């Protein structure tokens, strides 16, 4: 295959392995890049008052380092990278549930990283820290707009990816593999996907509101109209703490697989491992405010979060003890992956201990935003999850590339990383005790031990960089030496080792035995003498390649650039780079066009029969899980509104309230359209095409009428909003009305956007109907979009209640 043919193949593929590769390559490149930024940061801090990176330049590097490491390395590498490549193999399947959505999500992920870095060409990267606290994030330059757009897009990508994983685990498992026979890694990906779907709304709400505050001046957090800046932090950490577990759980899965394989034993306490995973995922939702102990919340509020914060240490500890149990009594083969797991256990232990220390609130007051915290989260994320990302990379390298790697260089890499890590970060704990705050680009000479410890830390960073070089050598040497990897080089027990290295596009040309005694099918089958039966690869059909998911993502990238460059009519410094409208128009047209092209291309060229475990279609299960995230998004924003309303900060204006009769009329349209969609869907299932098409058309038109009425309503309301805003300085009632209007536009407007998205979904199904692409058997996007439309309807009923009636 020539170079361009290979590129075209990549752009059009929906093969989960290639999709996994897109994630893996992007995220490990991101690791290297932001690792270099970390070295730059340490270079600036090697001594007092250095001039290498000063002020804003430092803050930009700091922000890019954090954002890139978190959003583009540690979250995706394990979940999306190894998850995509390995999970379907472990399940003994040919593909994921939603292969084209999956490819789209991968490109969207790549482009959101690209969007973040595009800011460099328009006046500089974001400099607000990866946490983009409000109101700081509305006072800064254009880089922040790109950052917010990037976060929104990467969030959408994560949600689609997570819904796909959830649907895959639900629907696609080798015949006979029950939930309790899935490998731990699959459980880990499953639990992580749940977490993403429930939690991601927090950061979507946070970044959306900051973007709207900058672009349109709509802000729930603005103290000028009585908003609460702390509410931003509630939104932000509602995601960003569970995100810590999104950054951890997939890697704990890797640790379990590696330990079991290299100890030649089953995982110890399989069920408890799963309970612990799920326990972490559940308790992880109730700890977010431990990032906010210094914002002055009430004692009771703080205590609740202390309680759950210390409690989450228990299931985390159970994971570690079970890993130890897995190794205990084994025949440990200290290859590079196992070394990284050992390094992880030691470092994660330190990170866990210091984490419990940080839950001791009076101590937390003292070390809030100090180097103690920096050392703690690097202990957990870098030498914790990061080490396990490398364990996974070396473990599956032969499977992914088809080549062995040089063990020597892998080990050099490990030791340099371990030693470099400890020398970099142990001094930082001490610096925390000695009063050094984080995110400082400079420090004065003459504070006890600051110079020495900072210098040591920089030396450690240089050793880490050398470790990075050893890693590169290991990879390059692997390709140069070209030692062919056998199917199962480590004696692994799970199904990814039951195919060639690298696996063929169809993964397996066999029918597996249907007896699963434990989570180690290969071990059990060997004991019982069961063998897979060969299948003729010519009878296997895979999804047809299509470039349109890729093009749709390109459309969103260009749209994102357009929105980022648009003028800031809100409080932020004026943006409005010439040509923004062009970017936006081109982006939107390309997006819509590609989306329709995608919808009009059938997934398979050949008629295929899908067998799913649940009996529900993949689209149905995927959309059901996606809807969880939509409910969470409205839930979190509405919770914010309720808070402002119940504390009396937001009060609807007596005389200029949006009209209830209009809302009720709109309710009628929307509810009616839900019925027409339902009947249209029913008609399709019973092969009545004409009524189906008519029903779809009527539904779409009802949606359009709703939308037009809403625009009219918004036009009127915006006049009253501006009035209230202008009077906010003089009158308390006007101030409260302004905040109420802000919430109104934000939440009702977001619902309006959902009407638009849902209507587009219906239009896609309608277009498929007109083109004769769907029938009772192959329902295209209708299953998903009708379900989504019902959601839009249900949310509207809530909105009428809390905005028009209450």
């Amino acid at each position, binding site marked *: 295959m020539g170079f361009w043919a290979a590129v075209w193949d990549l752009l059009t593929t929906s093969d989960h392995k290639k999709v996994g590769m897109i994630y893996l390559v992007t995220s490990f490149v991101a690791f290297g890049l932001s690792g270099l930024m970390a070295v730059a940061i340490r270079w600036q801090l090697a001594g007092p008052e250095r001039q290498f990176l000063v002020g*804003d330049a430092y803050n930009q590097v700091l922000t890019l380092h954090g954002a890139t490491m978190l959003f583009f390395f540690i979250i995706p590498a394990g979940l999306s990278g190894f998850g995509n490549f390995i999970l379907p193999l472990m399940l003994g399947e040919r593909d994921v549930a939603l292969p084209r959505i999956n490819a789209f999500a991968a490109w969207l992920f790549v482009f959101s990283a690209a969007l973040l870095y595009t800011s460099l060409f328009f006046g500089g990267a974001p400099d607000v820290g990866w946490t983009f606290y409000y109101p700081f994030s509305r*006072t800064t330059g254009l880089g922040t707009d790109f950052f917010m757009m990037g976060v929104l897009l990467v969030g959408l990508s994560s949600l689609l990816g997570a819904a796909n994983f959830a649907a895959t685990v639900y629907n696609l498992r080798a015949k006979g593999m029950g939930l309790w026979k899935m490998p731990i890694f699959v459980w880990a990906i499953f639990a992580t996907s749940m977490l993403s779907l429930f939690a991601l709304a927090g950061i979507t709400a946070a970044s959306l509101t900051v973007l709207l505050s900058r672009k349109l001046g709509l802000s729930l957090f603005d103290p000028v109209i009585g908003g609460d*800046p702390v509410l931003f932090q509630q939104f932000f950490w509602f995601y960003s703490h569970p995100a810590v577990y999104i950054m951890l759980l997939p890697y704990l899965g890797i640790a379990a697989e590696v330990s079991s394989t290299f100890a030649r034993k089953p995982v110890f306490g399989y069920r408890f491992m799963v309970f612990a995973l799920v326990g972490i995922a559940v308790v992880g939702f109730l700890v977010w405010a431990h990032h906010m102990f210094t*914002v002055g919340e009430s004692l009771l509020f703080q205590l609740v979060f202390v309680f759950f914060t210390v409690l989450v240490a228990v299931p985390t500890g159970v994971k570690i003890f079970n890993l130890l*149990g897995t190794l205990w009594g084994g*025949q440990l083969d200290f290859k590079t992956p196992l070394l990284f797991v050992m390094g992880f256990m030691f470092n994660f232990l330190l990170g866990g201990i210091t984490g419990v220390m940080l839950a001791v609130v009076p*101590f937390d007051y003292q070390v809030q935003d*100090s180097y103690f915290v920096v050392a703690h989260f690097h202990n957990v994320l870098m030498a914790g999850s990061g080490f396990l990302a490398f364990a996974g990379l070396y473990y599956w390298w032969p499977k992914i590339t088809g080549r062995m790697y040089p063990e020597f260089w892998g080990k050099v890499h490990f030791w340099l990383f371990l030693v470099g890590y400890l020398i970099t970060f142990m001094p930082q704990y001490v610096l925390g005790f000695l*009063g*050094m705050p984080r995110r400082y680009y400079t420090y004065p000479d003459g504070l006890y031990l600051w110079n020495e410890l900072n210098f040591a830390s920089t030396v450690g960073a240089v050793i880490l960089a050398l470790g990075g070089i050893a890693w590169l050598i290991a990879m390059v040497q692997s390709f140069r030496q070209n030692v062919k990897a056998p199917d199962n080089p480590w004696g692994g027990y799970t199904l990814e080792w039951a195919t060639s290295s690298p696996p063929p596009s169809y993964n397996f040309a066999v029918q597996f035995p249907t007896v699963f005694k434990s989570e180690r099918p290969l071990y059990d089958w060997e004991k019982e003498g069961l063998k897979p039966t060969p299948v003729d690869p010519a009878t296997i059909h895979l999804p047809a390649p299509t470039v349109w998911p890729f093009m749709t993502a390109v459309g969103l990238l260009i749209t994102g650039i357009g929105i980022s460059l648009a003028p800031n009519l809100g409080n932020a410094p004026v943006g409005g780079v010439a040509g923004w409208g062009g970017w936006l128009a081109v982006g939107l047209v390309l997006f819509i066009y590609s989306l329709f092209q995608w919808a009009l291309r059938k997934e398979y060229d050949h008629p295929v029969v899908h067998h799913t475990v649940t009996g529900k279609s993949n689209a149905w299960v995927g959309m059901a899980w996606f809807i969880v995230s939509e409910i969470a998004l409205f839930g979190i924003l509405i919770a914010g509104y309720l808070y402002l309303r119940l504390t009396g900060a937001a009060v609807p204006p007596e005389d200029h309230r949006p009209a209830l009769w209009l809302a009720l009329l709109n309710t009628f349209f929307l509810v009616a359209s839900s019925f027409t969609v339902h009947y249209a869907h029913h008609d399709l299932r019973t092969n009545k095409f004409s009524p189906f098409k008519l029903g779809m058309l009527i539904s779409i038109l009802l949606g359009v009428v709703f939308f037009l009425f809403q625009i009219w309503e918004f036009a009127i309301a915006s006049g009253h909003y501006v009035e209230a805003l202008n009077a906010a300085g003089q009158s308390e009632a006007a101030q409260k009305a302004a905040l109420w209007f802000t919430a109104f536009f934000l939440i009702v407007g977001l619902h309006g956007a959902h009407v638009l998205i849902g209507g587009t979904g219906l239009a896609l199904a309608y277009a498929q109907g007109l083109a004769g692409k769907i029938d009772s058997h192959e329902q295209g996007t209708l299953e998903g979009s009708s379900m989504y439309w019902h959601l839009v309807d249900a949310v509207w009923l809530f909105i009428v209640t809390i905005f028009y009636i209450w």
Partner: protein
Amino acid sequence: MLQRSLGLIVLLLLGLVLAAEPGQAGGHTLNILDRDASAFNREVRGLLVWVMGFAALVFVVVTGALVYVTVKFRRTGKETGEPEQLHGNDRLEVAWTVIPTVIVLIIFGLTAQSMFKLDRPTPGAMVVEVRGWQFWWDFHYKDYGVRNSNELILPVGKPVRFEITGGDGTNYDVIHSFRIASMVGARDAIPGVVTHIEVTPEKIGTYYGQCVELCGASHANMRFRVKVVPQEEFDRWIEGARAFQAAQPTDPTLVRGQELYKQQCAGCHALKGVSQGAPSNPDLTFFGNRTTVGAGMWPNVPEYLEPWIKNSPGMKPGVKMPAFPNLSDEDVKAIAAYLMSHKVEGLDFSKLEKF
């Protein structure tokens, strides 16, 4: 190889812990656990003793197991057959769930107890309103109607309640966080919100204040100093400050300085009896008493003060004060001398330890 490295690591850790004990050499020590400075620090120390005790226990058990596993179960190549295929042990699972639960519940109880203790307001505490601005601190002694920027004078042994906000309640700034290292923990300065923390300083001396929430280009340059002085000295200062009115200068340099001040500085800065300024800029009234310039950045001596007046953006990125390239060196010297002439007489805070 692994054992030796682990040994090395333990040694390294020990060394670091020992190094953390405040020593004699190497400049001023910031020590967040300074037991002599405040009851707050002693409370934190008391908690840490417990936590570190449990931490040591957990650390020893887990690293011990790690080392044991590494040494004992390393593959030798001489094994025959597979290791015992053990799938788990329910008793062990219960043990390592229950024991950590008990430990964390004890830690929770101690923490809660301590939080209640620290949260109790002290009657009769002196109220100081703290306002965070990009990139400096403003202090208002509410009980006395005295304002001072970037330097906080506190009497020893007297409880003080800080009421902290971002901006001044009308003009809003970004979020900052107020921390006096070595004395009391951080509390955020949030626009539109008033937070508070209390402490009783117990040791006379200079303390180092910091901003600990990322707030912009000069987040690292947003410091302040706290001078904890005897009650008698504090009383003299606060009385002098309340009675203060800027005198009309007679010295020709100071007259020139005053003229320039009124032209160039008075629009933004307050100087009691001379200019109102705006609340979003530092008060310059007691400049002659200040030990630092540029928000706790440099010693308040002409060597730093003069270039600061002329070109502060060149010294501190993102600072809102513009450069004054039109001022001659003489002009700058005159302004500096004029500023330094304003002070409460008979006080010298620079005799406290400097850093």
